[in-house]
């Protein structure tokens, strides 16, 4: 060890020939280990558990394909989002100081964390909204509608107006589904769509962008020409066509979003990586004897991550919005309670039951707004051009 003799080891005393170990960071080891566990569980679910049987019988939770993807996404977020933030505390504090200046973004972050936790954890504890024609058209609490709107008023009827109750704080739909529950389940859908598709996008975009930039030549040419074509196709119409052709299950929708939407970010990553690979620290790493994968992984990827994170944060809301729009058009997954679908459901009853379309719309709006605020603040806080600023 370095401190055997009590004196610190000096570089000129190193015996280079005795060295030759392969240094793998602990975080990579832990991530690989969890990936192995994940793969085992996945295999168990698909090979041993019958399709209609719950994967985890105790909880009665039948893990769907979307859930599996979501788990993988969360795993990646923990290892490459949360862990680095904890480990590199100095940098985290530095970025936090930058970020904190934007109060709207801090509020947005809190809001989104709540949405995220309620959407992912909360759904495990509450019953999915049930069809209940008797409870149809209940107004939200603290509001009232003419008593003839609901089939039977759950609350009091005062002056011929049905009052909302805490039993259905946000009221109910025309099918008697509780809107609060719909909203909570809608959070799950939005989070899944936003996070999983973005995760797929990030992985693809970063891989393609850095590879194209670092290798250059024909690889670069072919990849970027492909991106050109992909970007020529207007995203929304690509979704429309693919949804029309392949059907609108949530799983497919997420895959379509994830597999077709990475072009713009890949371009960004490429140009950023090109700039970065010209910088002297990349030369210095090469000059130290580092290999190409090492340089890409240890220097290029972390340095484009700011760009990627910002772009991703701004991509999430557009995906959530796209999913909501498709659901609104009736092209989404009919089995999931998307916010867009609830908005569409309420359209016919606008004049009598305003809350059905309005309340999920507010959640949709605020979620998108929050992500946009967040992305904007992140861009400012992570702007590499400001990093050198003393």
């Amino acid at each position, binding site marked *: 060890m370095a401190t055997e003799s009590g004196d610190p080891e000096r570089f000129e005393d190193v015996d280079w020939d005795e060295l030759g170990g392969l240094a793998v960071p602990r975080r990579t080891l832990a991530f690989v280990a969890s990936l192995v566990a994940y793969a085992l569980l996945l295999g168990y679910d698909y090979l041993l558990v019958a399709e209609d049987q719950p994967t985890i019988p105790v909880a009665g939770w039948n893990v769907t394909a979307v859930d599996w993807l979501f788990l993988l996404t969360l795993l990646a977020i923990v290892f490459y989002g949360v862990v680095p933030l904890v480990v590199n505390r100095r940098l985290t504090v530095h970025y936090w100081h930058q970020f904190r200046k934007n109060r709207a973004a801090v509020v947005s972050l809190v809001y989104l964390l709540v949405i995220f936790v309620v959407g992912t954890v909360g759904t495990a504890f509450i019953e999915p909204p049930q069809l209940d024609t008797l409870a149809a058209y209940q107004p939200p609490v603290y509001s009232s509608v003419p008593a003839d709107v609901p089939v039977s008023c759950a609350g009091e009827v005062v002056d011929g107006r049905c009052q909302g109750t805490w039993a259905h704080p946000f009221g109910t739909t025309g099918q008697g589904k509780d809107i609060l529950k719909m909203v909570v389940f809608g959070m799950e859908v939005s989070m899944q769509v936003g996070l999983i598709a973005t995760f797929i996008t990030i992985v693809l975009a970063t891989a393609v962008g850095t590879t194209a930039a670092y290798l250059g030549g024909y690889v670069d040419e072919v990849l970027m020409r492909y991106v050109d074509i992909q970007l020529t196709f207007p995203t929304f119409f690509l979704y429309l066509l693919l949804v029309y052709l392949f059907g609108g299950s949530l799983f497919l929708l997420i895959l379509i979003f994830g597999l077709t939407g990475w072009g713009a970010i890949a371009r960004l990553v490429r140009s950023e990586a090109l700039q970065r690979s010209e910088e002297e620290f990349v030369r210095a790493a090469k000059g130290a004897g580092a290999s190409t994968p090492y340089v890409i992984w240890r220097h290029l990827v972390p340095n484009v991550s700011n760009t990627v994170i910002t772009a991703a944060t701004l991509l999430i809301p557009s995906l959530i919005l796209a999913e909501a729009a498709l659901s609104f058009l009736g092209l989404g997954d009919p089995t999931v309670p998307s916010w867009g679908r609830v908005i569409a459901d309420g359209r016919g009853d606008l004049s009598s039951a305003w809350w059905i379309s*309005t309340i999920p719309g507010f959640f949709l709006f605020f979620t998108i707004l929050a992500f946009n605020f967040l992305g904007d603040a992140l861009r400012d806080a992570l702007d590499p051009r400001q990093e050198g600023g003393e």
Partner: protein
Amino acid sequence: MYWYVARRLAWAFVATFIILTITFLLLEVTPDAQAAQLQFQAAQGGGSAEAAREAYETRRGLDAPLWERYSNYMINVFTLEWGWSDTRSQPVVEAILDAYPYSLMYGIPAVLISTVVGIAIGLYSATHQYTLADYAGTFVAFFGISIPNFWFGIILLLVFAVELGWVPVLFDPNVPVFSVANAKQLVLPVFVLTTAAIASEMRYARAEALEYVNAEFVKTAKAKGADGRRILTRHILRPALVPLSTILVGDLLGLILTTSYLVEVVFGIPGLGRLSLDAILNQDTALVLGTTFIPVLIAVIGNLLQDLAYTILDPRIDYGDR
């Protein structure tokens, strides 16, 4: 320069070709819903599902070899033989010709208004950074970007049509184009469309202009004695137009196309978006393809224009590259 334009045109053509090919292949690998329905009907009616399918395929020319079907498909696309719409009982091209004027009616004013207003606000914001107006502008931008426009449309209808009754709830396609009634029923769609577009444009315009507000050459211009307006229009806007032209065409187009789709559905305008959605819901494949080609074509042309605009606006561009 001419060589560059020629090559860029060729590339647009190649891109279109590749996109069409991919679409063709997608159609090939996906099960044909209509055939399946016919087979199902035939089987239910006691006939042979197989025969029904064959009859259907012969009628559609689907029994020909893949290569022949592909070349036919390509020829048809380029000769505007876009097939027959079963649900509308008219050729697809005709259906599109019927619908597009309604899309233009609100689309053109929206593009014009949003471009001018968006860039103007963006520039003002950039040159008045950290003032109240800048914050207000930024807030408007965030609002416009974040609000789901189909929902926004519904809310506006609820307030202005249902509650206040200022505008009609239902769109009447039969009023004359240049009439007060038409203007009235177009106000809300244009408004929804411009909100989104203005927001996105002013954000870009502000960001691009900010790149130049602190540029050395702007300081030089100021040191030369140029006044604020001259600096803004000559020294900031002009160079900012270079990247802006890209965004204007590319992003604006995408945004307008998408938003218009939803707007037409919400407001019941019988334009291209509505036509497309109906085709999707009714499984009218020919019409779906036709109505999807239009925006794709517009996007390809938009891309082309954007690249050409770039070369015209930026003297630094290297025609040898790309």
